């Protein structure tokens, strides 16, 4: 059931207005914080207010402007879009709190918070985009808005990262545009509101070109190998940016786009007969394993996190390419599962950096005694990635494996299990260092660590300030909640189920 409602437009507008207010009044610390926090909270409330309706199958639509008949800017909040926007709005609140603490004393904070709000605004715009044009518009805006955040430090290294980032994503955007235009040409429509608008009689060439351009175009941001090159380099950005944008907003937008292409442009049924998705699945499986192996070799914490993100994003692509309902459920819930766990990790890494100045894995010996709460959160996130039951990551592993078995693709189950062991291989050493080695025993000879004040015996306990710690703990708690209370009404899983029914064009089973 579709209902015309202004809220799908309102949600991106709030962040947009916030950006404007921050740019206008942001010289004052109070107003900058006030508008950032208020907008984040109000937006979350607006999105939440749509939740009961969405859970009952209502889709909120709002047409803004039509350029030519059928082509224009329009918003449509279906369950899948709601899921994505709910995750990103919740995390926006947490990241804003964190960023206020983290960026204290940093330069150019007006620019930072302004563009930060703009990025979130476009993310929600993408989540609620009714058609490929709207989607593309926000997708490109996001690319541009992220640039100032990536180069925030303005070091040569940051500027280079920004250049590489722009090159990758602009080319990706261009490809997506070609795909969108071809779709419009072939079908006369760009809507994402149906379970597929293309049909098999368009001819192989057209279909293949559309699939490749759209998937590659969006796949760049989803960092599927070999298009992942920009992500580890972009880690020079300040930690809150890496956390929200490079673990959630920007990269998830790519995965979200690919999923939309699969379910709403092609449709599961058509792709099933065409069989293109299996190539995407194979590439995603390769990415999952290869990126994990790369992650093991990284000593820089943020780079290790980045490669882990590359690997985890491909879970979503792999799940989407399996074209079975259970796998689609995995693709959807993983958006939340990965987001909360990874953002917790980024927050932790940022907090460790701010408190102790450590940024490499090798320096973390004994950090568990220095920052017990922070490292507890990190441990929870790591266990979730390994897929230990009762943590969020297990749900993904479970649905994705079952979905693969549903699709008779047992080798993906093997990929999943190997990947979880690989995850253990790059997260557990950090936990091990943090808790089971002291700085003295680990760094015999490494004078840099020995000189560090944290290394001194029983100087101990230098926990991160509350503005950093509270978001970290909330994220960690959420990771456990996601893993244990999947069936509580209002938790993301119930929303994801509605999203899957809508993606497959199924009727919701009677409650």
């Amino acid at each position, binding site marked *: 059931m579709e209902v015309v409602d202004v809220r799908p437009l309102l949600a991106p507008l709030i962040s947009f207005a916030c950006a404007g207010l921050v740019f206008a009044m942001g010289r004052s610390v109070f107003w900058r914080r006030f508008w950032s926090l208020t907008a984040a909270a109000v937006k979350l409330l607006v999105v939440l207010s749509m939740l009961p309706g969405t859970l009952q199958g209502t889709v909120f639509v709002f047409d803004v402007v039509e350029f030519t008949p059928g082509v224009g800017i329009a918003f449509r909040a279906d369950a899948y879009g709601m899921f994505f926007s709910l995750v990103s709005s919740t995390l926006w609140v947490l990241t804003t709190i964190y960023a206020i603490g983290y960026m204290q004393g940093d330069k150019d904070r007006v620019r930072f918070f302004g563009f930060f709000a703009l990025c979130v605004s476009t993310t929600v715009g993408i989540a609620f985009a009714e058609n490929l044009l709207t989607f593309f518009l926000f997708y490109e805006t996001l690319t541009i808005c992220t640039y100032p955040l990536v180069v925030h430090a303005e070091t040569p290294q940051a500027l280079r990262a920004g250049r590489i980032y722009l090159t990758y994503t602009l080319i990706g955007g261009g490809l997506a545009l070609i795909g969108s235009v071809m779709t419009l040409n072939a079908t006369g429509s760009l809507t994402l509101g149906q379970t597929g608008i293309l049909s098999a009689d368009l001819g192989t060439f057209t279909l293949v070109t559309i699939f490749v351009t759209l998937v590659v175009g969006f796949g760049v941001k989803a960092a599927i190998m070999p298009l992942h090159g920009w992500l580890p380099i972009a880690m020079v950005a300040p930690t809150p940016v890496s956390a929200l944008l490079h673990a959630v907003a920007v990269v998830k937008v790519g995965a979200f786009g690919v999923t939309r292409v699969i379910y709403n442009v092609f449709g599961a049924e058509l792709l099933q007969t065409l069989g293109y998705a299996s190539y995407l699945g194979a590439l995603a499986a390769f990415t999952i394993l290869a990126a994990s192996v790369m992650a093991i070799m990284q000593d820089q914490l943020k780079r290790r996190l980045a490669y882990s993100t590359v690997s985890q994003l491909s879970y979503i692509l792999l799940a989407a390419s399996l074209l079975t309902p259970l796998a689609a459920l995995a693709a959807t819930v993983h958006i939340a599962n990965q987001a909360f766990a990874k953002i917790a990790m980024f927050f932790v890494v940022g907090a460790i950096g701010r408190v102790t100045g450590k940024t490499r894995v090798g320096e973390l010996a004994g950090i568990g005694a220095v920052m017990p709460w922070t490292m507890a959160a990190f441990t929870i996130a790591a266990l979730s990635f390994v897929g230990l039951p009762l943590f969020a990551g297990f749900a993904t592993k479970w649905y994705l494996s079952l979905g693969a078995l549903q699709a008779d693709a047992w080798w993906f189950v093997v990929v999943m299990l190997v990947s979880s062991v690989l995850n253990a291989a790059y997260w557990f050493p950090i936990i091990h260092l943090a808790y089971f080695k002291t700085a003295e025993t680990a760094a015999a000879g490494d004078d840099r660590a020995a000189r560090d004040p944290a290394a001194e015996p029983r100087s101990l306990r230098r926990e991160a300030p509350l503005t950093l710690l509270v978001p970290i703990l909330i994220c960690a708690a959420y990771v456990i909640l996601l893993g244990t209370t999947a*069936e509580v009404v209002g938790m993301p899983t119930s929303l994801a189920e509605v999203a899957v029914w809508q993606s497959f064009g199924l009727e919701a089973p009677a409650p």
Partner: protein
Amino acid sequence: MTTPVVTAWPLLTLLLPLAGALAAIGWPAGTPRGWRRPLLTVCSATTVLLTFAFVPPVLRGLTLEAQLLQITPQTWIVLRVDAAGVLYGATAALLWLLALVYAFGYLHGPNLGRVFATLMMCLAAAMGVAFAGNLLSFFVFYELLSVLTYVLVVHEETPRALAAGLKYLVYVLVGGSLVLCGVLLTFAASGDMAFQAGGLFAADVAPQTVLLAFACFLAGFGVKAAIMPLHGWVPDAHPAAPAPCSALLSGVLVAAGGFGLIRVSFEVVGVTLLRELGVMPWLGGLATLTVVVAALLALRQDDLKRRLAYSTISQMGYLTLALALLGPVATVGALVHLVHHAFMKGTLFFCAGSFAHATGRRGMASLAGLAARTPLTAAAFTLATLGMIGVPPLSGFVSKWWLGIGMLESEAPYALVVLLMGALLAAGYLLPVVFTLYFRSPVTGPLSEAPEAGVAQRARAIEGRASLLLATGVAALLTVVLGVAANVAGFPAALAQRAVAGFFGGP
């Protein structure tokens, strides 16, 4: 089968240990430090009493059930108390209490809060393993138990312990993944996961699928149950862990693998289907190999705890061997052996810990003549050794008796030969230790004079420390009591018979 009684009591077996874990790290804040140990003991002891309280209703044929959480739309985490579960659960809880009491006297130094909290969380996970009502619940608790145990293995943080911990982690994570694979295959094929006597696969499931699933379970649980060649973590992890934790590794953790195999064989795949698949003879072959080779390897270990670790591998081989025969009596033997072995091996590890504490060294030579200084501990060690060999009327004899009868009933006389070889080899690797303790005189010389004085002093301290002696004594006493009173209702044999009756479709 009667319908289960829904009750909240099983949940308490999880909550009590978790409360203990909080007490161990001093929560709620402000609790006096001196209260921690009494609180832990109370939590652990109450858990033991609770598991004992489950015995009478279970023997009457009731099952108790409690639903915990729904973690996916298809599955709940369910606790269900049945005969096999009570058998394993009560064993684990009781051995845990003893190990805890022992640890109070044994463990010193930093990180005590961490290790005690982990111990209690592991107890909760072990209770979950015992009382899991379906495959997914079983897997959940099994994985948590595996990963948490890491903290116990590496507690001493020596390079040796850390290396053993790493090896342990790799083994159990890969094993756990294989188990998960089996769970997934089972769920995809049957759509149901509740343990069900006789198996839960529908008749139309392809045999290849069942075989694949069972192979995954076998390899996965086999890692934990130390079936050769998957045993690699056992001989490293046991010596590295502190003695009370080694006792638990042997008596509960390795047994969890065996218990998982039993659950899966009888309540997931089912006897009929297993006979058709024809994999059990292969498992029997591996078990034979395990019993004999591990015992042979045990002969040449100089480190006492390493010797005991190989002994565990060998003894758990009996369990697998009996399981592979798929006979009712042999299965009773397997379950009874699981319990009896836990307390005998517990005693041995407690004693080994006390010896190591007294001498400060690990080699066999350091044990020479130690019995004169630690008479009670040495006596307990001797008693447990005799139990391991199977001297009547000790508990080891009873379980071997059941196993032997079962092997004959299943018309597998070769298995009986394996059993006897295992017992003889056990005599071969344990009796020399006893001999060294009592009859070999300590190596004396100008150089060892000073350490010897220290040994005497420390040995007196060990014998004088009530908690060490209490735990060792009770475990040794259980070795006798479980043997002498084996036929009393409510003792392991009765429970095992009840469980097996269910497995084989009896009343």
